[in-house]
């Protein structure tokens, strides 16, 4: 790269000041690194660490750019050049791969491509782990907090990043009618618990919230078991302004070992009528139910409370109002929790971004349409080369679930992630668990 270092100097002698500018000249045929993918929360201190992953989802073009690390005040701490050939993947452990790791509050990948995805995994070794997709979407209107648990067993934290060059004052309207304001300076990142907004007092009556004036904001929420109660749940969601009238919940876990939590949040002021259609694994539709969610209210419960038949493998909610929602899987022994948003997760191609090397990886794929789908799965290495490929045929509404290796007929132990493409829109997710069954995280196909 042809780089020119310029300085602008003012004053004389010891009172002299300067601004320094580094101008990188790239070839005219190289796209400018104008696309930003946000990792809006990074934690690598107080026993926490964060795993960051980037995948070039293009099968043709090299991705070039820089992974920029910032502190909470928005000061750039480092710039790591990224060059990923087609389908290549790169993973970082923030605590060991970055200097000033403890000061990093968020990261941004500036790259030449929009064919890129990634995730953040927050963890404390042996006790907590949660994964959240990185995002290229910056909120353009109100952002929803679809679930808040602030009580004796749970804490909910918010992590907010102001991507704009001006101060933002955000108003958080909680479901119990209270409001709080949060001010973020330009490019500032802040992470705080809900109870910290109320002088350290838990707020069991608050179930959800809406962040207004959230244009230019990227953020996430984390649910975590309170310390000292013997539970080690952790999961999180991006705070988005997205809603949809079709929510897909692609998995209902085994009732004996797991609980499946369902949240459907109606941010509108009108009552939403929900039509819930469960399906067997082979795609057979089961008894349809209806229910209502009042305006600005939500449904929260587990799959059993929804009266899903025991042979239900997944379900679809069609709503008269646009909803936000997600599902969680937790073990009944309070050790593991995973979940993902159920909003706008149907895709015709994507990746399951990590095959767990110190544990297990489960993959689920659901054909959400009434016609058969042909799905091609490729087991890929970090360098973008293919280890194995296989095809699945999914009948209408059929679900396929199994371990990553079970999906293929040849050994995929060298593979680090799986890419897929489908003739129909499908919904998929992956669960990664640790060998000791203490850590779990979930990510939708992205």
């Amino acid at each position, binding site marked *: 790269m042809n780089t*020119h270092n310029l300085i602008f100097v003012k004053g004389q002698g010891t009172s*002299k000041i*300067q601004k320094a500018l*580094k101008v*990188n000249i790239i*070839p005219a*045929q190289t796209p*400018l690194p104008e696309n930003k993918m946000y990792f809006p929360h990074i934690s690598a201190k107080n026993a926490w660490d964060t795993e960051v992953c980037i995948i070039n989802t293009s099968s043709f073009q090299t991705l070039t750019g820089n992974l920029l690390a910032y502190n909470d005040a928005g000061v750039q701490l*480092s710039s790591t050049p990224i060059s990923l050939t087609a389908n290549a993947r790169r993973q970082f452990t923030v605590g060991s791969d970055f200097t000033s790791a403890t000061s990093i509050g968020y990261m941004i990948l500036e790259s030449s491509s929009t064919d890129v995805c990634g995730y953040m995994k927050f963890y404390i070794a042996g006790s907590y782990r949660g994964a959240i997709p990185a995002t290229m979407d910056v909120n353009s209107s109100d952002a929803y907090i679809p679930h808040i648990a602030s009580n004796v067993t749970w804490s909910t934290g918010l992590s907010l990043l102001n991507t704009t*060059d001006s101060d933002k004052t955000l108003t958080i309207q909680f479901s119990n009618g209270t409001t709080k304001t949060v001010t973020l300076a330009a490019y500032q990142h802040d992470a705080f618990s809900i109870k910290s907004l109320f002088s350290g007092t838990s707020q069991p009556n608050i179930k959800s919230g809406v962040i207004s004036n959230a244009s230019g904001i990227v953020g996430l929420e984390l649910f975590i078991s309170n310390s000292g109660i013997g539970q080690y749940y952790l999961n999180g969601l991006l705070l988005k302004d997205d809603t949809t009238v079709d929510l897909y919940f692609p998995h209902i876990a085994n009732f004996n070992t797991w609980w499946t939590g369902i949240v459907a949040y109606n941010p509108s002021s009108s009552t939403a009528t929900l039509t819930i259609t469960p399906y067997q694994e082979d795609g057979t539709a089961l008894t349809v139910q209806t229910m209502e969610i009042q305006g600005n209210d939500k449904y929260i419960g587990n799959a059993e409370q929804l009266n899903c038949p025991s042979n239900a493998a997944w379900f679809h909610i069609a709503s008269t109002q646009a909803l936000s929602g997600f599902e969680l899987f937790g073990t009944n022994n309070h050790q593991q929790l995973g979940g993902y948003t159920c909003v706008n997760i149907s895709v015709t191609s994507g990746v399951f971004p990590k095959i767990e090397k110190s544990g297990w990886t489960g993959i689920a794929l659901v054909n959400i349409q009434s016609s058969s789908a042909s799905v091609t799965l490729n087991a890929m290495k970090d360098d973008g080369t293919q280890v194995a490929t296989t095809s699945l045929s999914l009948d209408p509404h059929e679900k396929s679930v199994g371990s990553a290796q079970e999906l293929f007929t040849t050994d995929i132990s060298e593979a680090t992630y799986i890419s897929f493409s489908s003739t129909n829109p499908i919904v998929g997710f992956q669960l990664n668990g640790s060998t000791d069954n203490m850590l779990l995280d979930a990510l939708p196909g992205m």
Partner: protein
Amino acid sequence: MKIHGKVAFFLFLYVIFIFAYQSPAYAADVSLNRYSLVFGAVKNGNVTSTYTGSQTVTIYNNGTESVTYAVYNNSEWLSTYPSSGVILPGGYAIITVSVGPCGYVADTYTGSISIDMSSGSPISLPVAMHVLNPEQDANPFGIFDTPFSGSTVRSSIPVTGWALDDVKTESVKIYSGATYIGDATMVEGSRPDVEALYPDYPVNYNAGWGYMMLTNFLPGGGNGTYNIRAVAEDTEGNQTTLGTKTIYCDNANSVKPFGAIDTPAGETFVSGSTSSCFGWALTPQPGTIPIDGSTIDVWIDGTNAGHPSYNKYRSDIAELFPNYNNSDGAGGIFLWDTTAYSDGVHCIYWSASDTGRKPDGIGSRYFTVSNSRGEGESKDFVPAAADKIIRGDYATQAQYRTGYDTTTSLKNLNPDINDIMHLTIQEGGRIEVHLNETGYRGYHQKINVNAGLPTGSTLDSSGVFS
């Protein structure tokens, strides 16, 4: 078809014409644009047939008092001119340095130039001369950087690279297949990376070359596959093909305006209060460029200088490109006052848009303003002293925009933890940085030298760098 006469030269916007500054060991208020010089020579029997021609060193008086200087050298093979002079505050003097290698056997000779000042310490400038036997003479070498092989291009594209030689690179010629396209221009300071990598090569500060190739002029109207070749030739006549790039030109599907600047021609000297810049611009159908020239902008050193008078009939353009809405009035002329600019190398370029589209650059030229103000004249900037501790100060928010549309919103530009702001642009791109403070002077940092801002750029009195 005489292609090269139609195509505007293009070089990086961010090339450096060194208004230099000294290493900390130099006098506090006097600076140079170079900290060493290297010459090469190739013997031919008992005589020397070829050698590096004269090079120049510029002395700047950064202080508030006039400076008297005297130049000495310590070697018989080395000569300098002039031997002495006076530089007014803010002014400069150019010292020409040449070598006489005749009679010297093949070897490396070192010497130095000493510049004594009326105030401050003398400045010493090391000079090396490499005398080679004919069998030691090497071909020029370098890299053909862009465009990338396999790329699809339209309209004007920068053809760029670098070349060095043990004596001097005389030219880099661009070919499409066997068809000569034109000579690239060697631009001083455009490749600081090469300069740093090859410190012992003559005129290494002049390694970068560039050529703006208007692909519409290629055979077939610039539609199809072309093999673009760059050939460097040194003073001795040795040639090296620096590389060949296979590109696909797709002007049939181009939607951007295109054109060229015809004058000033490459490396032209201009002077006086009225200088003419001729060019032309067209846009693909169904677009039309307004005939009043209001969507064509002329930029000098990155600053908007106004609109040309447009809609002039050009028979050559009308015949070559008959089916465009502006075919019968593609020509334009821009008159400007060269005395408003300092003596030295400057860059002029045009951007154009048709109705409803963003403007894009269509051609550029480098030229030299020479109004004979010469030695002792005050320049419009004063290089900074670098021997003081300088602290970063970003209390005032800097902002920037890119491209030729000056109505787009400014974005904030923040420093990293090392107090450095970062921007990335493409070759031929334009940036505009608003420091939002006045009183700044701008420099280009190189090894041991703080040089002047790149040729073709300006830091105006309001603190806008473009």
